[in-house]
């Protein structure tokens, strides 16, 4: 077997595997041919291998971004005014973790919470897939939820004096219904130290009101009837059930160490997302056909080879999106489309070269020379594009460059496209052409 044959076989196998991975999960097949009716759904299986202790599991589904799947992108800015630089990072990280907890408790799966710091501004980015109750999610995530117990001062004008008993002393909280009023209340359970503090506090303030403050607003101020031991208390404000649940979530996750404010919100409904997906597929198909027709019209049989390479390009790219996985957004789709347009550039360079070299040499020779000479340009030009794409994609997460958003989504698919097109435009088409040339000779 010749080296060329082995290479082609390898390329074929790779394409076959990638083609399988790139298939959608369910492929409905419906046709009616000469009385034979076929109407069934073919399932593409995911990777689920188990050999001894070795387990290999991989899901072959495209990961869609919020603008395609629907969801909310929220950016909160942390007010780090009162915090010194050293503790800033700790506070922001704590906020991130608490927000993550709150989102999870709210019942949203796979939230993505990350921090970003740029020229003294600290932000926390929260991405919620497929949320309908955006408003509520924002309320729960963005509230500081600092719980404090305050006692009445001795003098007339002293007002409320906050004590050292706070939300930090909680073990857990829960929503229950008050036995007498039937209204939802939040039941809190103190930890050991909190229970001790609470006991002392209730003892000291017998027959006096003890105020419960949430973010410096009075929720309730019940009068203490007796010393409370055992470390549990009840917050009974005028809550709706939802409000009580939200408060409970916030208390369970903990208070934010610094207040935050929402500076950016991007919500895309599922309908619009699905519409965009459909349009992307149609647009991709139309573009692909145009490019393919153009290549055949311009380069004839060579164009066909380029089209096979382009098909391999598409299949590998899709498979890699699924395997890495790349979170596909609308700008990401744009990057992919652009990379298709650029993928045939290597072939165009080679074929134009071939036109020049052909009169001077034999067919096989001309091909080899064209590939060899065009390679320098292809390499140099693509490295320049890759450099830009890399700066935009910011794979090292530098804070002074784009850390999220559409620019990055675009750059990731564009750089991936360039790398794959180097392989398909040069390696794949070269080996295919070699095989065809050989056949002609034999």
């Amino acid at each position, binding site marked *: 077997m010749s080296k060329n044959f082995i290479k082609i076989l390898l390329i074929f196998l790779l394409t076959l595997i990638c083609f399988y991975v790139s298939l959608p999960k369910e492929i409905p097949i419906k046709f009616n041919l000469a009385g034979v009716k076929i109407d069934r759904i073919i399932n593409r299986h995911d990777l689920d291998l188990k050999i001894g202790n070795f387990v290999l599991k991989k899901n072959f589904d495209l990961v869609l971004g919020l603008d395609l799947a629907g969801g909310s992108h929220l*950016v909160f*800015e942390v007010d780090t005014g009162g915090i010194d630089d050293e503790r800033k990072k700790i506070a922001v990280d704590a906020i991130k973790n608490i927000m993550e907890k709150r989102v999870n408790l709210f019942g949203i799966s796979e939230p993505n919470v990350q921090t970003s710091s*740029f020229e003294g*501004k600290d932000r926390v980015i929260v991405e919620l897939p497929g949320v309908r109750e*955006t*408003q509520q999610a*924002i*309320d729960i995530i963005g509230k500081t939820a600092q719980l404090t117990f305050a006692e009445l001062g001795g003098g007339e004008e002293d007002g409320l004096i906050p004590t050292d008993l706070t939300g930090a002393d909680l073990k857990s909280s829960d929503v229950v219904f008050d036995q007498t009023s039937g209204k939802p209340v939040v039941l809190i359970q103190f930890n050991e130290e909190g229970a001790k503090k609470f006991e002392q506090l209730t003892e000291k303030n017998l027959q006096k009101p003890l105020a419960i403050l949430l973010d410096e607003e009075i929720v309730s101020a019940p009068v203490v009837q007796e010393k409370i031991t055992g470390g549990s208390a009840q917050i009974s404000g005028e809550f709706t059930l939802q409000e009580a649940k939200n408060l409970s979530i916030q208390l369970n996750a903990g208070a934010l160490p610094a207040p935050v404010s*929402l*500076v*950016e*919100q*991007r*919500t*895309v*409904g599922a*309908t*619009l997302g699905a519409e*965009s997906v459909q*349009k*992307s597929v149609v*647009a991709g198909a*139309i*573009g692909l056909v*145009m*490019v393919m027709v*153009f*290549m055949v019209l311009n380069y004839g049989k060579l164009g066909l080879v380029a089209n096979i390479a382009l098909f391999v390009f598409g299949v590998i790219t899709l498979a890699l999106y699924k395997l890495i996985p790349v979170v596909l957004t*609308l*700008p990401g*789709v*744009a990057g992919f489309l*652009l990379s*298709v*347009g*650029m993928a045939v*550039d290597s072939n*165009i*360079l080679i074929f*134009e070269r071939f036109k020049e070299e052909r009169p001077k040499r034999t067919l096989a020779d001309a091909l080899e020379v064209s590939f060899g*000479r065009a390679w*320098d*340009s292809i390499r*140099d*030009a*693509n*490295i*320049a*594009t890759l*450099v*830009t*794409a890399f*700066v*935009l994609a910011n794979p090292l997460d530098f804070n*002074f*460059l*784009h850390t999220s958003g*559409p*620019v990055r989504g*675009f750059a990731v698919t564009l750089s991936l496209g360039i790398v794959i097109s180097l392989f398909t435009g040069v390696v794949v088409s070269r080996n295919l052409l070699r095989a065809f040339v050989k056949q002609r000779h034999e």
Partner: protein
Amino acid sequence: MDWMKHRKIYFLISGALIIVGVFALIKWGLNPGIDFRGGTIAEYHFNEGISTEEITRSLEEEGIQVFSVQDTGEGKYLFRLPALGSQDQEKIKRIFQESTEGSDSEELRFETVGPSVGPELVRKTIYAAAIASLAILLWVAFQFKSLKFGVSAILAMFHDSLCLVGVFAIFGHYFEVEVDFLFVTALLTTLSFSVHDTIVVYDRIRETQSKLGGGLYDIANRAVTETMVRSLNNSFTIIFMLIALVLLGGETVKWFAAALFVGTVLGTYSSPFVAVPLVVFWDEVEKKIRFR
């Protein structure tokens, strides 16, 4: 073909393009979208037809300022509003429910950006462009072992970006096109495409120079002739994909594709008609200085 004979004309064309662009930029500036300026874009779908005047009035009665309402077809409406809090979002929903008498309205998207986000985006973009330019300059200078090529490629690249920005200043003035996140992406892609195309021609110059030798003027002519078809064909395939992108639909994507289209055309033009003439011009000046 003797392309380089007309290099003064190319410089004149480019000079005129830049002057018009800079003029538009100074006179009108760019029309910043919500990504830069802050604000809200919200798109809703109504089951029954609505009167935009009525909706606007009921929103403004409730204290929500409306910049514009745009009918995007199929019962969809795009609202441009100032930056809003999440309470206002609920309020809008309520108002819609009331003023359409219970007819269903669906929130397709709701994007609101605070005014503090824009400056950060601008800064990050400048950093990204600066780093990318520097890296490309170093790469080209290293690869061609000459600052002449590197600087000329970068100048051609700036030429393209400046013209693109100028074109969008004009678009912004006449068609109210806003520049957003995606425009920034298109601008940076133009940077890389411009250099990509230039390098292919430079590569030809280098190859011919080492094989045949001779004056740069003739070699440049030859290289431009030999790469012209490839350059055009490559641009065509990209433009095909951009047409496909327009089919993706939506106001934002349409202008994104337009920006990439202008960038592609400029990038294709600038390689033989800016980048190469610059190298030839530089070479001549260099020689004159040496002879003196």
